């Protein structure tokens, strides 16, 4: 299921406000997702906010406007989206750091054209609307005739599909890192 937040420039301060960054854990941020938009000052849910609409309960795809995830580098942003239940975010563009952070946490950022995103936002309001994302084939499609392909770096796709550990991959080159360090020391002394 897909839920839309029809705004551009949704920044990471909105995704996860700063008062929740003091925790030292990596999990449990879903309940703080979009906190200031989701809840009134007294903690009651904001009926106008799409995530509080029962029709979208259990949504796993978020669709939003351009430059999604701009601002702070806080990885708490993808942590909270994932913990809430989202597995993909669709937008016309993403901020670089957020895009990176998402891929490292199994949250797929999908870039589609402005028109395609507009179409999905409109359709997401239809009764029992379902959207499918196929990472393997790099396709987004629904059962009502909408289909669009998306780009993703082949290496990142490979890592995501296979759940590879980045640090483990890099440590395969440990000898090269050590060699680089010795070379650097030599240059600095020459």
């Amino acid at each position, binding site marked *: 299921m897909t839920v839309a937040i029809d705004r551009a420039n949704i920044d990471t301060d909105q995704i996860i406000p700063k008062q929740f*960054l003091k925790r030292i854990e990596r999990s449990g941020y879903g309940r703080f997702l979009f906190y200031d938009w989701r809840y009134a000052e007294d903690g009651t849910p904001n009926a106008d906010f799409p995530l509080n609409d029962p029709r979208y309960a259990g949504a796993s795809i978020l669709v939003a406007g351009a*430059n999604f995830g701009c601002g702070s580098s806080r990885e708490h942003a993808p942590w909270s989206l994932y913990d809430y239940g989202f597995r993909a975010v669709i937008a016309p*563009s993403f901020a*670089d750091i957020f895009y990176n952070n998402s891929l*490292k946490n199994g949250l797929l950022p999908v870039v589609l054209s402005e028109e395609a995103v507009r179409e999905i936002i409109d359709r997401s309001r239809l009764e029992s609307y379902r959207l499918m994302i196929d990472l393997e084939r790099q396709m987004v499609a629904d059962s009502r005739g909408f289909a669009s392909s998306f780009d993703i770096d082949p290496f990142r796709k490979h890592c995501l599909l296979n759940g590879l550990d980045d640090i483990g991959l890099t440590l395969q080159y440990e000898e090269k890192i050590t060699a680089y360090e010795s070379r650097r020391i030599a240059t600095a002394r020459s």
Partner: protein
Amino acid sequence: MKTLYDKIWDAHVVHEEDGKPSLLYIDLHLVHEVTSPQAFEGLRMADRRVRRPDLTFATVDHAIPTINRDRPFQDRIAAKQVETLRRNCADTGIELYDLDRPEQGIVHVVGPEQGLTQPGMTIVCGDSHTSTHGAFGALAFGIGTSEVEHVLATQTLPQSKAKNLQVKVNGTLPFGVSPKDLILGVINQIGTDGGTGHVIEYAGEAIRAMSMEGRMTVCNMSIEAGAKAGLIAPDETTFGYLRGRAFAPAEAEWGETVERWRSLKTDPDADFDLSVEIDASELAPFVTWGTSPEMSVRITDFVPDPRSSPENKRRSYELAMEYMGIGPATRLDRLAIDRAFIGSCTNSRIEDLREAAKVARGYKVDGNVKAMVVPGSMQIKRQAEDEGLAGIFVDAGFEWRDAGCSMCLAMNDDVLGAGERCASTSNRNFEGRQGRGGRTHLVSPSMAAAAAIAGHFVDVREWKFK
């Protein structure tokens, strides 16, 4: 023919392979309390060690109080986070500029101040404003916590190369127009995603004439244009700033090092993927009116009318104006403020405080305004006290605090109340950034000081200095 970015990149490639990101060596890793605990925990769980604690430095800045530091933390969760950083640094041998250290301060103020930040380096930190260090001709960018863990474990990062964007600033900045106004003007022109996927190199006469403090302000807000990093080629100003600092090269190696640093500039015929030119002499003091750093106007101009704005901006403008309590097509120069904040990694350095103090000298903060000055580091705090700046602020009625991020992101007690309007020298005017319902207007230090005294925004070019 290479750009400065190309040169720094090439010098740091550890491993390259077709179809994969390059593995880049990281020369300096800066750490703070908020984005590091989960990274250290990840290392522990995988039984990995910190590869180069000697290239890693930590400070506390984001969530710490800027007042009453001799008393125990009021905020238990923040206290635990700081305690966690202390333990992680002690366990792994990382130097920590803790609350009781004279070096303590905002991570992007401390790095340059201690001479840790040097030309030609690669620098990362789990904070988006790491772009600040680009002012020294270092490739510096913000990373997430997974990447913090990666750098701790390997001292490298897999990276895909960004594109080159040149912002050339011709002419000279007029009186009363600061580097902050320049970068707000750049963001206004190219938009908050204008730099996405690019490293911005700032060049031109106005950049060359700028102090290191000014260059740091400019590079700091590159991220607000969506850029991966900001860069300025090092020159005599850079070398002069660094010489003699704690971690700067020793005198015996100084000449040789500077010779090497001189080669860190873009070749004359190098190609940029994109170029933007700006005439500094046409700039004026800027004030943001909305909830994105691109939503700004010259102090003498009218804010836009959404009805006559481009269709793709209309809705954002309406939402922002509603949140900010600003009418369409109005001017900001009589708009009353409740708070003024002078500080943050954008504008808390000695020169920023000097500019603000020039305005404040001999005046009093307006009775309806609560104003505070939060120096970027304890070293700057002491220097400002020695220069008499602190006295000017205190006499005028500004609160004079200890160093930290403070109300830039309001993780500590320095928070805006709902509906409060603030003239802020920080970098983000996002909804709720400085406190839920708070209304942030980004300005330069002198504009913030002038607004605090007048009780409303004013054009600092017409200020009667005492």
